[in-house]
């Protein structure tokens, strides 16, 4: 009995070491995945984010699979992913967007400079819909199937190498 007690601290320390080594060899990602993947979109109805572009409501996101892009005109990676969004649009993907904490004039300027792949853009000035979606930053993109269920969440900007994967997932969501 006494021997067990004496060696217990060493064993506990070894346990701690195991955890630390695990964590050092698998540096955790800081991405926060949404818990809504696999579930229906939350209900929302957003006002237009840019002049001449319609706003976005949950009811609009049904009928066929599409990409829901969460972006902002003030976000540099959002500008960086715009060529990939345009390519997806070219490939026939329908893309809608939510502009986070933005101003209409800035959004319009952003679309002029970086191209406009979007069908509809809703304005989310207080990030309320963004939080309801479980999105923790911009840019993020959600693949929504024809029934309005979130099938996939892409965290961060869409890189050129991600395009085929997203096309495949859109295809799978049909």
């Amino acid at each position: 009995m006494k021997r067990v007690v004496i060696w217990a601290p060493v064993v506990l320390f070894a346990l701690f070491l195991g955890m630390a080594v695990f964590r050092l060899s698998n540096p955790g990602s800081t991405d926060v995945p949404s818990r809504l993947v696999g579930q229906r979109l939350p209900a929302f109805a957003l006002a237009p984010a840019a002049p001449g572009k319609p706003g976005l409501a949950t009811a609009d996101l049904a009928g066929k699979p599409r990409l829901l892009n969460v972006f902002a005109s003030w976000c540099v990676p959002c500008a960086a992913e715009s060529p990939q969004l345009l390519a997806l649009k070219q490939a026939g993907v329908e893309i809608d967007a939510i502009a986070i904490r933005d101003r209409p004039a800035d959004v319009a300027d952003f679309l002029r400079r970086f191209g406009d792949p979007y069908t509809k853009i809703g304005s989310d000035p207080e990030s309320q819909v963004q939080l309801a979606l479980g999105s923790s930053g911009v840019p993020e993109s959600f693949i929504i199937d024809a029934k309005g269920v979130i099938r996939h969440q892409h965290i961060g900007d869409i890189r050129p190498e991600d395009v085929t994967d997203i096309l495949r997932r859109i295809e799978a969501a049909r």
Partner: protein
Amino acid sequence: MIAELGLAALWLAAALALLQFGCGMLAMRGSEGMAALVRPVAVVQGVLVTLAFVCLLEVFRVTDLSVALVAENSHVAKPLMYKIAGAWGNHEGSMLLWVTVLGLCGAGVALIERRLAPPALMATLGAQAAIALGFYAFLLIASNPFARLNPAPAEGAGLNPLLQDPGLAFHPPTLYFGYVGLSIAFSFAVGALLTGEVGPAFARAMRPWVLGAWIFLTLGITAGSYWAYYELGWGGWWFWDPVENASLMPWLAATALLHSVTVVATRDGLRAWTVMLAVVAFSMSMVGTFLVRSGILTSVHAFAVDPTRGSFILGLLVLYIGGALTLFALRVGTVREGSRFDPVSREGALVLNNLLLSAILGIVLIGTLYPLGVEAVTGEKLSVGPPYFNSAAGPLALGLVAVMAVGPLLRWRRDDLAPLARRLALPVALSLIALAAVLALLGPIGVMPLLGLALAVGVGAASLAPLWGRSLRRTPLFTWGMVVAHVGVAVSLAGMASETAFTRETLAAARLGETLSVGPYAVTIRSVAPVAGPNWTAIEGTFVARRGEGSAFALNPQARTFSRPPTQTSEAAIATRLDGQLYVVLGPQAEDGRWQVRLWWKPFVTLIWLGGAMVAVGGALSLIGRVLRERRAREALA
């Protein structure tokens, strides 16, 4: 040139640490020639590493941007105080401060320590050098603070603005003296295990060093809590953040050690347990350093994260903690059992104190590491927050405070319950009166704050009891120290309970001219205007607060924008009154022109830090009292 001098001093100090380690081990086995060498080498090592640190301060003072560390963490346009504080506001600099304190501690033991038997002292200094060696290697191989940059940049990247605060100038160094000061207790324990000499002499020799480190830890934690309270603008004083826990855990272990070492010194009991605690206390410091420096836990304290450095420190942990725990397991059999005592006795209360402190330490450790363990096993990400810590550690902490009230009223070795009950009658009565008064006058509040307030009153009274019926002038200074520290705990507890139960909060979007109420105050937002400082610009609100019919006073919270690095901080405006603090934060402006404003009225919140400071002062009185008594005892012998 200064940087090269610093690097050279660091290499020499490392070489001397190697020498000190070797000589210490040989001297422990009886080599007298080696023994003569150990003390001077330890002193010179301390001087050299201090020189290296002074060189680092100098390159930061003159903003020598050809030193990579300065370029990355300082800026020409920074106020002088923050240029110097920037020296330890980064990874390399803070690790250099770490070894500097380690070296100074070793030099201190070498210069002052006269009570320990020579072999034990040699083993202790050898162990201290062994610890230092690992951290020198870490600095010189993986974190050279003096690395040059070519070409040198024109102005430097700047220091995180959150750290540009007087609090930063003192908080980390204070904490480090505490963390690293515990290394002496660790080395003493290793020395004792190697030589098998654990007894009252060992405990009396170790006690002042533990006390000294513990005072610095207490001050560092108290100052850090206040810094977070006013600088982060959340109005909270403790967040159970992993980095805060990293400082709390050594403190808990050191507090337990402080009390158990007294049992060894006075009654020669709890020998093995005390040695274990001495190992655990500094181990907690090292684990804390590892958790903070490797970035394996997510924290609001954004330190530079580097897995290579993490692996290096982990290697040092294996060597030192693993080594010491194994040594303990192998050698504790040679530590003879100390004397026995009755459950109802001063020793009994101190054992209970130690058990409760250890349990709280366990709770904090488990809560801090739990997210890591869960992710390793199931891959799920989660964080452990205040609900766990408060509900798990809170009741134990209240129990601990109650034991603290009883302990000093008990006699050593054995005591009876009847006289104890008589001694406790008044404090218990006061507690019950306080309980009834709070319920009657202030209405229903949470159970924990209610118990906290009632206990604080009773414990405050009971803590003064050791002075009852004594001539205050003849009472030894260390008894005064205990009384002041224990009353400080009661004061701090009262502040925590009051803040938890009675804080009033108002969050509003307000137009200029609008008046908001919070607690007893009416606060009007008068104007918002831009202002500029040496390296920041800000919008500053002018708020006018008035309590009932009292005179009005102005408060000026700011939302600051720093240029290098581009960061925004919130400077809360805090008005301190005798019965609490009014805390005002100015947030961003909404699109409709209203300002987001947060107001808090926090009754008696200042008691939290006042109590913390009293605990530290009590420790200092106790330390001075012990040192003076020993000096007198030595003079009487001589």
